[in-house]
């Protein structure tokens, strides 16, 4: 299948998935209570999935190479950003501190 066609099909399919997920309890099953088992599982989805997205981007630098050591600038930057996020629940400060630490370390480590 050619790349462009694959991408368009993917856009429509994933678009349908994200929209159905968003509509799910607001519109599709609005009149139904959530099954308790689903409710218990879904509660943990944000932490589980956000962690699964964040952690590899920080500890595998470059992808596939595990770097849990102080020489990994991304790891240090993410730890600092994490502490900032814990201390001040501000997206702006979190992102700004992470990027500034990353740039500073890159400059120093070079």
């Amino acid at each position, binding site marked *: 299948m050619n*790349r*462009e066609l694959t*991408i*368009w*099909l*993917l*856009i*429509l*399919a*994933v*678009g349908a*998935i*994200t*929209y159905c*997920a*968003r*509509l*799910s*309890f*607001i*519109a599709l099953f*609005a009149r139904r209570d959530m099954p308790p088992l689903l*409710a*218990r599982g*879904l*509660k*943990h*989805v*944000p*932490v*589980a*999935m*956000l*962690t*699964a*997205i*964040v*952690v*590899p*981007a920080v*500890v*595998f630098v470059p992808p*596939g190479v*595990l770097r849990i050591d102080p020489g990994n600038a*991304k790891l240090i*930057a*993410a730890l600092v*950003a*994490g502490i900032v*996020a814990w201390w001040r*629940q*501000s*997206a*702006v400060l*979190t*992102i700004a501190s*992470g*990027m500034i630490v990353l*740039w500073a370390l*890159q400059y120093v480590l070079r």
Partner: protein
Amino acid sequence: MRRYFSRPAFYQGAREIAPMLIGIVPFGIVCGIGAIAAGASPAAALAMSMIMFSGAAQIVAVQLLVAGAPFAVILLSCLVVSLRLIMYSAAMAPYLRPLDHRWRNVLSFLLTDQAFAGTLQRFRRSPDIRANASYFLGSGAFIWVTWQVATLAGILAGRIVAASWQLDFVVPLCFLAVLVPLLRDRVSMLVFAVATVAVITLDAMPLRLSLVCGGLLAIGAGMLGDKFARGHE
């Protein structure tokens, strides 16, 4: 649509979500650059942001496209990444129930990590459905428009952005900003710990299936953790 529209609340929603956009702009740029790098045409790259409208799903889709993953694997990964939208939908549903179906369809489309984080507190405080709906619409619409503009900037300016800027690092930082405030109890910490260990140990799995498997393992651990915590009450 008029019935539930309040102009001041709409603008207030847009204004108060503005600080969140600082993370969304570079993230959108990264998505635009990534889609082009994965071989999408500029039109497809923009359509991706307009229709999928989910940074997490878009990044995962782009990475897997580059890795040459089969279509079904890409869909599965995007589905798992999008599960959290179901949870947001469920949390929002009671507050949106009084609205007619058109409002609910539109607001659902605009439901994102940022819109959810920015509006749920307000919904809990105020019972004014008209103001709340308009506030959500203002926040959501502003996020959507910003996302498109940022994606377009990435599509057009991708070649100018130097690799040494490490702009793609804003992606984990954006999610970190949403994630950390959720780690307020022991079971959440357990889910975080299990997800961390699982995605690291499972990284050798092909096609980034570590994302799906690690995430699901952590959800299971959280459910067990809840059971254990209840048992000790």
